[in-house]
């Protein structure tokens, strides 16, 4: 399955752009997306944390993605 992802902060720098189409190669859940990201862009493995938000909520590794979802890469936050 192909999904479109949105990236912020350092994730945008790693992907060299705010949006990216990702081909999920391991499965369709959040864990597979993270694995694909780390395989394709090794810089993601070096971050302090890597979270995925789907439709504006943080999701666990076993959350199943759909093509219509708004999927966002959330690198370590630093507001405040």
């Amino acid at each position, binding site marked *: 399955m192909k999904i479109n992802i*949105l990236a*912020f*902060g*350092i994730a945008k*720098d790693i992907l060299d752009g705010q949006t990216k189409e990702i081909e999920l190669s391991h499965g369709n859940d959040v864990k597979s997306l993270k694995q694909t990201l780390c395989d394709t862009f090794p810089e993601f493995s*070096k*971050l*302090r944390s890597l979270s995925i*938000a789907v439709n*504006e*909520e*943080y999701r666990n590794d076993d959350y199943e993605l759909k093509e219509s979802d708004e999927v*966002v890469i*959330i*690198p*370590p*936050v*630093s*507001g*405040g």
Partner: protein
Amino acid sequence: MINIELKDEPLSVEECNDLAVSPTAGGTVVFVGTVRDQTKGKKVTHLEFEAYKPMAISEMRKIAEQAAEKWQAAHVVIHHRVGKLDITDIAVIIAVATPHRKAAFEACEYCIDTLKETVPIWKKEFFEDGAVWVAAHP
């Protein structure tokens, strides 16, 4: 009452306090986060905040609702800035009014601590010789 804002204009402490103050509350605690002139001894020239806006607002609202419930707060106000900020500019204001003051201190500290953990906002610090996304790496 809960009031959440994310904006690219200067924040006002007076406005946040006025929104929070309540005739039923004896104390309002306001946290004002400002831009420091250095990080680990290295001189900071300015900052940029980027946010995933709809989710940043909904996560700030969750925090405010949790605080309001746990500490019986009359009002919780959270305003966060985005865009370019200079030294001493205000990045965030959190104002919490409760009937008794101890709860206001606890609730306000809970809000800023949690905001820094969960709200999708990212800070880029600019130095004279480059820039880094804060806290991105271990």
